Every structure is written in structure tokens, then in C-alpha cells.
């Protein structure tokens, strides 16, 4: 009977890892959360990628909308239009979100965020409170939209066909060509390798002189806070523009400094006026982006704590242009 390997898992260990929630509610902890609490939490933790109204930012997933679109040419699959079980949303938000900062949400916060996602999909009213007890009462619009894999019957003709080998068609015409679309990435692998080799040495030197002037503890603190930003912003070697511009050398640089990034109109105008990202400007922007610049595309709610703002700025200073 067995090899006698491994050891018994403790109850606490199982509780720490066994978090999954099933469609019948098995695994849901006690708790509750309202749509209105959920809205605040959503703006703070989720809107940066999913938009204030769960509509999705850029290439990031929309969580709301798309109702009735599944048979269209381009279906919009959201929690409201597609997901068959509410348990899936609760489970995923609780265990795997926020992106880059997972497993920070309490049970109540998760109930609230899920309630807000339901509200964004017009599934519940604005005064709704989601709890463990009413969880199974929520009706998901696409609950009946799934069938179990039926390929072996619906596609049985792929099995019993005797493959034709001669004169299988009267004529063959080309009906579509990939080069017309022209969406294939161009091969720049060799170029990139050459660039990298050329860039390596001086970059390392600069980094050393730069870091001498910085507070390493504050930089480390800033790296942690920056997790909230990294879903949209990259820094460091090879940083590229994503939803937001890459931030190498941002401190002290001109506003709107990256030519090929599509800034919001107000941000572009601020840049044209000659404004610079001083530490004060950055702190004010980070505190409340939309108060600092009405109309900015940055949908981040802001860093309320001054020490967080300072830490992120110190962290950003450690990355040269």
C-alpha cells in the first residue's frame, strides 16, 4: 500500500490553497459586498485595464456588454454575455486578480467587485448586495449557452470519409491571400540581437552612476507599488509602449515625450506647452490623475499615500532613457 512518501497536509495548508469555488457555490466563504462598494474597489483595482464601466481598455478584456452578440460575426464575450456561472467570476477575481497583484482581495471585497460587474451588465440594480446566501439566485444570461463537446457525433463525417486521391475537384482557385492583410510580424530578430549587443556596455555603466544617487530602500518600496502600474506601463531594458507609454527616463522629461505613442489630447497639448515631468508634477498626477489633467486616458484611480507616490518616483528615477 503505497511508497510511504510525502506527508499529511495540515488543515491550514489545505485552507490556504484550496480556494476554488464550484457552480453550486461549494467553496464560497461567508461574506457580502454591495454594488457601490464594488464600484470604488473596481476603479481602484480593475479599471486600469478593464475601464471604469468594465468596458475594457485597449486590448484588455471587456467584462460588460456584448449581450446578444454571440451569433454575430464578431461576438463580444463578457461576464454578462458569455460566462455561464457566477462562481467562475468570483473564483477568478478572488484568486487571480488584480493582474500583477493577485490574492489581495478579501472575501467581502470580492463579493463587492463581482456585484459591480453584475451591475455593469445590467444583471442587478445599483442597490444590490451580493452575499453567499443570494449567490445562486443570480441568473447568468448565457447559462444555457453551452453544450458538451459533440464532435464525435456532429463531425462523425470526418471519421468515415474515404479520402479522395484523384480528380477531387474540377478547378482550384485562390480565394484569399495572407499578404493582402499584411499583419504578419516582420522579421527583425537579427537586428534586435545586434542592437542589444551594441547597447549592453554603456547602459550598465550609466546604471551604476545613476543608482548611487538614489535611496535603495525607497526604490525597492517603489518597485512594489509599481505593480499597480505594470499592467499598462513597462520600464527597464527593452521597455515598450503598451496601454500606457514606457516610462524609462520619465522623471525630468518633457510631457508627451514619446513621438509614436497616442496620448490623450489634453496630455499632448500639455506637452506642446513645454511642461516637464518634475517630481512635483508627477506626484500630483499620481495622486489623482484625472484631477491633475482632465481628459487623461490613464484610468488609474491614483496613489493616495504620499509615501507611495515618492517611492514610485524614486523607482522610476532608477531607469534611464
Amino acid at each position, binding site marked *: 500500500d503505497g511508497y510511504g512518501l510525502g506527508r499529511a497536509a495540515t488543515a491550514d495548508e489545505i485552507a490556504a*490553497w484550496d480556494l476554488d469555488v464550484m457552480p453550486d457555490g461549494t467553496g464560497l466563504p461567508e461574506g457580502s459586498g454591495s454594488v457601490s462598494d464594488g464600484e470604488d474597489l473596481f476603479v481602484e483595482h480593475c479599471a486600469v485595464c478593464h475601464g471604469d464601466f468594465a468596458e475594457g481598455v485597449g486590448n484588455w478584456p471587456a467584462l460588460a456588454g456584448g449581450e446578444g452578440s454571440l451569433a454575430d460575426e464578431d461576438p463580444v464575450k463578457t461576464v454578462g454575455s*458569455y460566462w455561464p456561472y457566477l462562481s*467562475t467570476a468570483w473564483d477568478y477575481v478572488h484568486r*487571480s486578480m488584480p493582474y500583477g497583484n493577485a490574492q489581495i482581495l478579501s472575501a467581502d471585497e470580492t463579493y463587492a467587485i463581482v456585484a459591480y460587474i453584475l451591475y455593469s451588465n445590467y444583471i442587478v440594480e445599483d442597490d444590490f448586495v451580493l452575499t453567499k446566501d443570494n449567490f445562486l439566485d443570480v441568473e447568468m444570461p448565457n447559462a444555457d449557452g453551452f453544450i458538451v463537446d459533440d464532435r464525435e457525433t456532429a463531425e462523425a463525417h470526418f471519421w468515415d470519409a474515404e479520402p479522395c486521391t484523384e480528380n477531387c475537384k474540377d478547378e482550384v*482557385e485562390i480565394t484569399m491571400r495572407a499578404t493582402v492583410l499584411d499583419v504578419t510580424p516582420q522579421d527583425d530578430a537579427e537586428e534586435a540581437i545586434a542592437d542589444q549587443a551594441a547597447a549592453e556596455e554603456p547602459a550598465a555603466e550609466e546604471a551604476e552612476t545613476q543608482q548611487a544617487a538614489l535611496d535603495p530602500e525607497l526604490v525597492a518600496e517603489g518597485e512594489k507599488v509599481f505593480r499597480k502600474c505594470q499592467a499598462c506601463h513597462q520600464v527597464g531594458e527593452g521597455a515598450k509602449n503598451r496601454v500606457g507609454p514606457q516610462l524609462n527616463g520619465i522623471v525630468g522629461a518633457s510631457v508627451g515625450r514619446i513621438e509614436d505613442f497616442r496620448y490623450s489630447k489634453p496630455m499632448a497639448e500639455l506637452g506642446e506647452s513645454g511642461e516637464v515631468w518634475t517630481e512635483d508634477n508627477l506626484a500630483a498626477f499620481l495622486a489623482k490623475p484625472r484631477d491633475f489633467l482632465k481628459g487623461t486616458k490613464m484610468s488609474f484611480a491614483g496613489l493616495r499615500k504620499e509615501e507611495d507616490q515618492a517611492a514610485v518616483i524614486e523607482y522610476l528615477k532608477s531607469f534611464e532613457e
Partner: protein
Amino acid sequence: EGDPLITEVQPWASGFGEGVDATPYGLPIRFESDVVRRNVEWLTADTISSINFTPIHALDGTITPQGCAFERHHSGAIELSKQDYRLMINGLVDTPLVFTYADLERFPRENHVYFCECAANTGMEWAGAQLNGAQFTHGMIHNMEYSGVPLRTLLEEAGLDPAGDLSDKWIYVEGADASSNGRSIPMDKALDDVLVAFKANGEALRKEHGYPVRLVVPGWEGNMWVKWLRRVEVMDGPVESREETSKYTDTLADGTSRKWTWEMDAKSVITSPSPQSPIPHGAGPLVITGLAWSGRGAIDRVDVSIDGGENWQTARLAKPGEAKALTRFYLDIEWDGSEMLLQSRAMDDTGYVQPTKEALREVRGENSIYHNNCIQTWLVTPNGEAENVEVS
């Protein structure tokens, strides 16, 4: 008179090459620096949750080197050491257990070669020919020799009785990364051939493939091959996690969606010539080669057409097909230098015949996203260049 490379003494035939240890762990010679994974930036919002593609157009044989085998992460490739590794078996077992990496190495071990194909491989081609290269249309696949412990052994160690009635039981598997990427697997499969693997092609798994331990689910979609495997729970039913409801489900033309479409059906592609691997010579002897595979069994025949599917010839298999592993095929022809429309058609030992794009669309429409195993067409022009096209 003659080729100076032959008639003159070349530097490499006179001086030294590098000594041993010049590269304690070797990389391909610099002349092969274009044989690398590539991604398609517009596909995803961020490389942290994204995919890249194996350069299948430049490889031969069947084993994929780990260094260029495609990667798919949902929350980035994490760094997890063997010392920090723990695997928990819990749920409906007699004794929930925790194993260390060292524990896993003490169980009897097996070796198997299997392909791992992302369910979305060729997914960008549903609505029409889109990406111009076998790497991009078919490169979400790799094929490695895995060493590991059958999951069945570990479940039995925790007191699961395989002789009991387990027909309605499932396992739920999850990874240690922030996405956890949990998936539900019916018990029949779990006890059949699922492997808890820690070596690939003889060496430790690479970080990007789940170091130190990943799940191998032969023949089934790659998303279920959970990396950084940390927990296996025996359950009464499926969890219906995000990765098996909102993703990895196949929406049909009428808006209903298939779920639990786990098996990867028989499929093949000509890897050369292809858009990234044009014919470098003119008319004369030409090697047409490609890969075929089936998640339901072994490949037992591959046909190749050079005229867009009007006539077919049976290709030569490099070795008899192995179940749930890649099979290499060759068709050696005397090319007359005229335009070709190259296609390949795989058949497996369950009698499945790889369908045309048209036949697949008739059943599934164009919004399936996943499980596109249609016949691929390359247009090869007299100058040897190739392009991804669709034909009537």
C-alpha cells in the same frame, strides 16, 4: 581551378577552434540566430499574458528543442526553485498529502514523447488566411520526451482506490503562478496517461515550461498542461473555472458554445517549403516535409497535394506514427519549377481524416477561435517563394 573553399586552405582548417568549456551550456551557433520563438504583438495586450510560436519552419525531425519551444503564460513565467516546490493532493482522498520535489524523484518514473498544442493554434485563420508563415499559423506546438511520475501513482499514494467507482469523479489541477490557470479533468483521463513531469528532452524543464514540475495531459489541449503544478484536488464535479468556461470553449455559428473540447484532432502542416522557408534552388529534386499529429491516437497516413487538393500522393513517414506525438513526413519530388498549391492531409488510427477549412466552417462557423485543424494551403511560385492562401 575550382572552388576556393576547397582549393585554398581556410582559416578554420589551419588555426584553432574554441576549446572545451568555451560555452559551459551551449547555444546554437550564431549562423542559426534566426531560429527563435516569435510573437505576434497585436494578438494580446501584454507579453505577460501572451503566447509565442515555435519556429517549426526551420526544424526537422520531431523533437522540439526546449529553447525554441513556444511559451504561453497567463501571468508570466515565474521562478520557482526545487527547494520551494510543494505539490498538494487533496479532496476526496483518504489522506491529503504534500510532496516535495525530492519526494517526486523517489517514485517509479516513466518516459514518453508527446506533443503539446495550444487549443488556439491556427486560431487566427478561422475567418481567412491571415498570417504568413508556418511558425505563426501552426507554431503553438512542441513535442518533447518527458520524464515523470504517472499522476495515478500519486493519487493512489494519497489513498484513492482506482478499483472503486470513480466514473463521476474529477480532478482539479492548478499552478503556483498568480493566474493559477486551474483546469478540471475527468478521472478516467487522470488515471489513464497523465504524467507529473520534471524533465523534458532529458534535462530539467525550462522556467517558461513550468520548472520544476508541470502536468502532461497527452493529446489534450495545451492549457490543461498546468505549469508549476502545485495542487491536484479530487472532486465530485468540474470547477468550471475561467479557463474552461470563458476561454477554451468553442462558439458555433448559432451562438451556442461547445465546452470540454479537450482532444486535439488530427492535423498536419507542410513546414518546408513555406513562407518563411522558401525554395532556395530552382527546378529539380525537392524535399517537401511537414509534421502531422493527433490527440486521439497515432498518425498512420499523410497525403500531400501539390495542386491545391485536386490530386494527392501518400507521403513517406520518417518513422511509424506514435500516439499523441508528432510524426515527420516527407514527399521527395522532382519539381518542374511551376507554381504549386501545397497541402497536407493527416489521418490517424481512429479513422479520422483531417478536414478542409470549408468542411470545418460548415460545422463550426468562423468564431470558434480554438481547435482549428483544417488543411493548410501554401502557394509556391516559380521563384520558390511561398504564401499562405485559401483555395476553392
